[in-house]
């Protein structure tokens, strides 16, 4: 089997963090791949919720959008979107929420709104979506984000969703009920919050990546944990399940749609 790509490394690393039976609030892209990979490997009873209202979905191919028909077809049931946010997320029923962003800071706060000033942005990003409340209410969140000094920044242009704020227990004193970002899975490795200061620290690297490379990819002086592990390489079962999933997905998304008029 060919060597794993960075996307595959991130996806497999995230999938491994998901315990069987946990309730996940899934975002599109790598998080969706990670959650479904977990379901197809070690966590068959993981419960996947997409914000479109599909609960307990078991898609055979990955959705492109968060509301593809595949998600509804394979769901235990479908609820109106307001209920997903009020009765499930806000109610504290979600164990793990996944978040992505354009920018992250050293305390896991995220920006997915604008680069530049809000009213005259250099780059207008898609915006908040479910993120602010996933960040607040999921019992914990995992962030998946590729690193560059433009994405891992010393100061966010806009705080779309709260991580540990300024650290040192600030989040615990806020109205947020979840424990915040417990892992940031990037393409160099994994950051986790320092137990006291809550600053993100490098705790694991993918094989072949050095701490110096990780530091260079991050726009602040990166805190190193006392012990930095090497993330075990994806095994054949993981890689082949993921590649088969992605292959099925690409095939499905290229199916021509014909409207029966």
């Amino acid at each position, binding site marked *: 089997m060919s060597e794993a790509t960075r996307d595959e490394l991130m996806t497999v690393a995230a999938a491994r963090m998901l315990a069987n039976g946990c309730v996940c609030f899934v975002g599109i892209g790598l998080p969706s791949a990670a959650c479904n990979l977990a379901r197809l490997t070690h966590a068959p009873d993981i419960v996947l919720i997409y914000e479109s209202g599909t609960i307990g979905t078991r898609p055979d191919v990955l959705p492109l*959008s968060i509301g593809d*028909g595949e998600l*509804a077809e394979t769901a235990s049931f479908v609820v109106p979107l307001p209920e997903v946010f009020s009765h499930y997320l806000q109610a504290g029923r979600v164990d793990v929420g996944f978040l992505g962003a354009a920018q992250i800071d050293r305390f896991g706060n995220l920006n997915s709104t604008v680069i530049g000033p809000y*009213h005259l942005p250099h780059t207008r990003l898609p915006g908040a979506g*479910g993120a*602010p*409340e996933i960040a*607040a209410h999921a019992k914990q969140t995992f962030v998946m984000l590729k690193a560059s000094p433009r994405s891992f920044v010393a100061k966010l242009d806009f705080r779309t969703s709260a991580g540990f704020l300024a650290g040192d227990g600030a989040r615990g004193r*806020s109205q947020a009920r979840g424990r915040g970002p417990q892992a940031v899975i990037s393409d160099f490795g994994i950051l986790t919050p320092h137990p006291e200061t809550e600053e993100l620290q490098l705790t694991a690297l993918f094989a072949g990546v050095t701490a110096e490379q990780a530091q260079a990819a991050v726009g602040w002086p990166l805190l190193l944990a006392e012990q930095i592990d090497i993330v075990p390489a994806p095994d054949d079962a993981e890689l082949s399940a993921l590649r088969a999933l992605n292959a099925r997905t690409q095939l499905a998304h290229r199916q021509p*749609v014909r409207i029966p008029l």
Partner: protein
Amino acid sequence: MSPALSLSEAIERFVVDGASVALEGFTHLIPFAAGHEIIRQRRRNLHLIRMTPDLIYDQMIGMGCARRLTFSWGGNPGVGSLHRLRDAVEHGWPTSLELDEHSHAGMAAAYCAGAARLPFGMLRGYIDTDLPAHNPRIGRVECPFTGEQLAAVPAINPDVTILHAQRADRAGNVAIHGIVGAAREAGLAAKNLVVTVEEIVDELPPAMNGVVLPYWVVSAVVHCPGGAYPSYAHGCYARDNDFYQRWDAIARDRGAFNEWMQRHVLETEDQRAFLASLETVAA
């Protein structure tokens, strides 16, 4: 009895310049045909409302229909940016666009308040984010029993909500099957509700606990097969994920966008002609 109208009649009657208009449907059942007809009728200064503007509002914004946008996530799902939306916000092209920006949870609460005719909705939301500082329509309310502070958003009550659904009966009762998003709340919150449907049947299948909008809350029903394409109608046709990916290149460039809109929307007279121009119609 909700009148059955043609799409052009329904847009002419219910969507006037300057109106607040919500085309809802979360990924599923997005009323594209209605959006295209609004573009054809060259409506202006609309206050567009949608949780996820999606391609349909990218098109309407790019064609200059909108002056204001209430939304909570403005991307091309799984693909990237809405380039026309970005161009309007970043460069004021073709006109500037005022933003009323929320999170999904906040906008859902606003629609629910609208449907219930409450003046505001509340949530545990927007906690320690920068959104409230940039949107005066995100406020606070205090629990009269515990003193807790919660986020508050004004109710959304569009002048008109337009939905797409699988079917209606001849009386105008509408049944939705599958992902429903905030469509029901957006529909019940509106002053007028127009629904385009894949088919009109003599009798709806038994609903019991299903999602139904009764005829006496529906202003008009429009028979419009394929009216959600390139979004989808569960049980009728799938989402054209490939089209969503191809849209990225079309919308990136003002010229390519204008040409596409000219050819496929302005120069087609209705949804059937639009679909034929894209060769999506089943032989």
